[in-house]
């Protein structure tokens, strides 16, 4: 069944149809939540809450990109969570006990690493942590735009729909986010593969 039909049935209260939409998009939604919050457990909670909110407000979906609508909901959920943490800061157990990038980064996404040397896998993991650390230090609005554009590959209009901002604002935020990320990644340049080293890049 195609997505518009599933959406229509879900809007009429068909939970099975909605759950099929969940299964189709949960990876993107979870990944955005994880990159924004930076913690697996909190990202899971935000994702679940976002899907629940989506189901309850499904009648408010007026067409367009369904996944964009879902990403907007999870983005707002993550913002709420981060604001709540700012008001009541606490150190999460996950951060204290984490020795790598998190259990989920050892999943199928890292299957390729099974073929490589253990040192290479460790380097990849360390690089991921370094980039995530740079993202975590970006202002929230810049972070979301950078993740949507450079990690998840959405175009400007989709990003504008997700963050609820004009196209020009997205363009400006993304440029400034890249500038800050560039400064941050300079500290980890030895982790970057040779092809990605910033000083080796030649103008096209």
């Amino acid at each position, binding site marked *: 069944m195609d997505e518009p039909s599933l959406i229509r049935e879900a809007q009429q209260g068909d939970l099975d149809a909605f759950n099929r939409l969940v299964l189709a998009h949960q990876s993107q939604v*979870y*990944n955005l939540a994880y990159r924004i919050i930076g913690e697996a457990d909190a990202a*899971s909670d935000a994702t679940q809450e976002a899907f629940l909110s989506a189901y309850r407000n499904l009648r408010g979906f007026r067409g367009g990109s369904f996944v964009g609508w879902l990403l907007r909901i999870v983005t707002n959920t993550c913002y709420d969570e981060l604001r709540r943490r700012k008001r009541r800061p606490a150190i999460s157990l996950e951060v204290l006990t984490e020795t790598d990038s998190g259990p*989920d980064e050892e999943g199928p996404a890292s299957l390729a690493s099974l073929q490589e040397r253990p040192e290479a896998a460790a380097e990849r993991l360390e690089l991921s942590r370094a980039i995530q650390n740079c993202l975590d230090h970006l202002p929230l609005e810049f972070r979301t735009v950078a993740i949507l554009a450079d990690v998840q590959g959405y175009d400007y209009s989709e990003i504008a729909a997700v963050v609820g901002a004009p196209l020009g604002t997205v363009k*400006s935020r993304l*440029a400034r986010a890249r500038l800050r990320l560039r400064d941050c990644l300079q500290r980890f340049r030895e982790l*970057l593969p040779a092809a990605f080293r910033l000083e080796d890049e030649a*103008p096209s």
Partner: protein
Amino acid sequence: MTGLHRLPRRDLEKLSAYLDGELTPAETVRLDARLRKEAALAEALGEMRATKRALGLLPMLRPPRNFTLTPKMAGIREPRRYPALRWASALATLAFMAACGLDAFGVLSRGVSFGASAPAPMAAEMQSAVLEATATEPANPPPTAAAEESAPILAQAPPAADAIAPLMASPEIRSLGVAVTPLGLGGGPPATEGDLEAQAAFPTETPPSEAEILASAAATPAPTLVPTLGPAPLPAEGTARAPATEAPLSRLPLATPRVPTIRWAEIGFAGAAIVLAALSLRGRRKR
């Protein structure tokens, strides 16, 4: 300080949009021309492209679990199964309570209106005991053995006789010539249980004056627990009891033990309530 920091903000945004293919064709042509001429601009573009690529190295993570919603999470209430069972269970419980109430009311009302004749069950009890003793009597048993055998039976029976015994034994009553008639046993003085039964079992061994005593005993009023004051003198101890028992016994109705209908109703309703409640709970757990 890198090349990116030296750029004006407008050029920075243009380079960023250029990387993403978000410039108009005209803007792209103009920026291409500038990049060929301005080395600093080209260097800044290279730095930005490397940053974008580095972010692209982040892996796509696998969600730790599925985020599908359950009906409970979605706030969907499943239709209740077997609602008739729940109603039937409630009705059976109510009927049981009503039956209990009726039963209790009946017991109370009987206790008030028949208070004076309350010993009636005791009379029936004693009557059945005596009947049992005579029925189980052997053809020609030795008197002592019969007395010993029937003693336990009477020992169960005589709350009334026991209650009366001290009264009969008191000298005042004896001197007044009171004829106390224990229920179902006719009037006469108190006798030991052994004597009583021995005489009941073997009337042939009664002394010659028995005929007179029998006549006076037959003339005594209906058996009652209330001591009967009468002119009859106290007969000789241990002689008159057994023949006197036969006349009242023949007049008493036989009490057949039976469970009242209301009790059957209570049992039935209670059983129905328990079974229906169990079925209802089972149906709920299956959900």
